[in-house]
Structure formats: structure tokens, C-alpha cells
């Protein structure tokens, strides 16, 4: 489970970085953050059934002037690999991927997901950072959005329990 305090910090940082639309698929550790995004008046929240859909929604929204992000678990990152490759990367869409790190060091479940998350991001050529320090949340999010916008590519932030 996440905390409201940390989730609020992430939400504020996302808003400061100009994120204006968020697609999401839940995870237990993202519960508070998704709840806060759903309540927020400035960010358009688009729950989707599968993460590939979310990459599509973010792509359409970007073309129309939104600054999009998708919130999902790393299992969802795996689900969205084709859309990331043949849409987000091929068309050059700067979508911020906020990926919960299931199977992180010390997590007793989803160890294969944990093992493969960073290699998959590297394999896709997606720049990423693993977020472990709540004090750096604002800087990490601002930096990731800047990199995404400048490179016109998806950029990922991998969220660990420490920052949620």
C-alpha cells in the first residue's frame, strides 16, 4: 500500500511538470495515487482496461495538445510493448510512463517481473530512472518530462514502494 502523503507529492510534481492527462490501470501500491488523480480537477483521468489502450489514449491526447502520462504496474509495461514500439517510439510520442516496480529487490512476489523490467526498458531504448528517494520525487518527475518532451520519446519512471 502507498501513502497519501507520498502520493500527493507525486501528483503535485506531475502537475508542476505540466502533465494534463493520465491513463491508468491499478495496482494495490498505486491505489492512493490513482484515487487522488481521479479527484483532481486539472488532470483528465482516463482509466483503461489494458495498458496498450493507455498508450493509444496518450498518443491521441498528445497530438491534441495534452501532456500525457500512464500509470501502471510493470506487468502492464510488458502488456504495452507493441504499442510502445510501433506507436509511441515509431511516431515519437513523449508519454511519461509511471511504472510500479513489482518484484523489486526484497519483494517476495513477481520476481520474474522484477528481474525483467529494467532489461525490457533498456531493450526498448526507453530512458528510465528508478525512483527510490521521496525527497527527489519532484526533480525526477520534472527531469523525466523534460527528457520526454525534448526527445519526443516515451520516458519511464519506475516507482518503488519507498516513494509511494
Amino acid at each position, binding site marked *: 500500500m502507498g501513502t497519501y502523503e507520498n502520493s500527493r507529492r507525486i501528483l503535485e510534481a506531475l502537475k508542476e511538470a505540466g502533465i494534463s492527462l493520465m491513463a491508468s490501470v491499478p495496482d494495490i501500491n498505486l491505489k492512493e495515487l490513482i484515487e487522488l488523480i481521479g479527484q483532481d480537477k486539472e488532470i*483528465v483521468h482516463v*482509466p483503461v482496461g489494458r495498458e496498450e*489502450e493507455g498508450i493509444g489514449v496518450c498518443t*491521441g*491526447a*498528445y*497530438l*491534441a495538445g495534452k501532456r500525457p502520462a500512464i500509470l501502471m504496474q510493470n506487468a502492464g509495461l510488458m502488456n504495452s510493448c507493441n504499442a510502445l514500439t510501433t506507436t509511441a517510439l515509431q*511516431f515519437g510520442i513523449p508519454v511519461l510512463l509511471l511504472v510500479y516496480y513489482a518484484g523489486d529487490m526484497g519483494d517476495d512476489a513477481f520476481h520474474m517481473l522484477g528481474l525483467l523490467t529494467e532489461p525490457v526498458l533498456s531493450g526498448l531504448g526507453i530512458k528510465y530512472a528508478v525512483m527510490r528517494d521521496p525527497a527527489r520525487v519532484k526533480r525526477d518527475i520534472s527531469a523525466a518530462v*523534460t527528457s520526454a518532451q525534448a526527445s519526443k520519446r516515451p520516458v519511464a519512471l519506475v516507482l518503488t514502494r519507498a516513494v509511494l
Partner: protein
Amino acid sequence: MKRFECLQAIAPLMKDELFVTTAGGATSEWNAVRPSDGNLQVKTLGLCSSIGLGLAIALPRRRVIVFDGDGALWMNMGSLATIGLHQPKNLVHICWDNQQYESSGGEPTVSTAEKIDFAGVAKAAGIQSSRCVSTVEDLKEAVSYALSHDGPHFVWATIEPGRTQVPALKYDELENKYRVIRYIEETEGISVLTVPIPHSYELKTDRH
């Protein structure tokens, strides 16, 4: 009815709608019938409906039309549920069903066995304005209705297989993206693309 004659029949009904066209024959045929910088090609099979949803949510006063196919829709059936959930009034989703993966060599899709009712699925997912058409006249009527009433709308158009010889697209997906963005910027009066100035170029007034 053939897809190409369908496209020719509905093109005169269009004004400044944005089009998201599936990875398949509908894209090159539509761009031959109605070339426009408001046409976006899709490279991920099935993702056209999701991209269209994102556009429709981001531009709620602009009509967005999605051209899907039976194979593509089968790959992203969940998008019907998501469209049903969000109820974008400005989204018109048309599925050209030729009962085959035309671009892959004509292999059967879920539609080939004629068990699936795509319009029924869409309706059950919450897309109330959902119908099946199999004649050009019915198609024109359905599209006219969709263009003049709040949606979301789903039109299941059952067509004959076969492509019409048309010129290949003149530009790739990157140029297509920029053209679509510039078209949206101009027609919506908004700014989407800004080129960042490197920090080293910024005028420093506090430097001595």
C-alpha cells in the same frame, strides 16, 4: 459493397473531422479518396480505437472518426468497453468488416465464422448508438446520423473483401504526426509543439 465505394460515398459528408485509420487497406484508400492533414495512419494493429479515444477526450468539441477492421478490432475488443465507459460524444467508430486479415494474406478472423455481432458487443459495452450496415445507402444514413448527433457511435459495416489500387502514402508516420499536429494547431487555435531553447542559449541577466 466494397470498402472503396463506401469511402467515396461518405467522403462528401465530411467537413473538418479528424481521422484515425487502422493498420490496413482502409488507410491508403481513405487517403486517396480524401487526402487531408487531419488523417492519422496507425501502425499498431487494433490501436486505432484507443488513439481515437484519446483524441476525442482531448478535443471534446472536435469530431473524431476511427476506421477499424475486423481483425484489428478483435485485437483490441476491450477498447469498446473503454469507449462505453468514457462516453465520448464526439467519437464515431466505424469497423470495415471484410471477414479477413486482408493485409496479412486473407486469413480468417473472428468474423469469418459469422458468429460474432460486433454491433451487439458495442451496444452491450455501453455504446448505445450502435448499428450494422451492409448497403451503401444504409452506411450513408448511419454516418450522417453519427455526424449530427451526440455519440459515441459505432457502425459495423460488412463489406466485400478486396483492395482498390491506390497510390501509396506519400509520407511516413513521423511526417504524418507533424502534419496532424500542425493541422490541429491551425484548426483549433492551440499550440502543441514548442521547441525548447537549450539552457546555454538563455539570456542570463544575473551573470556578471
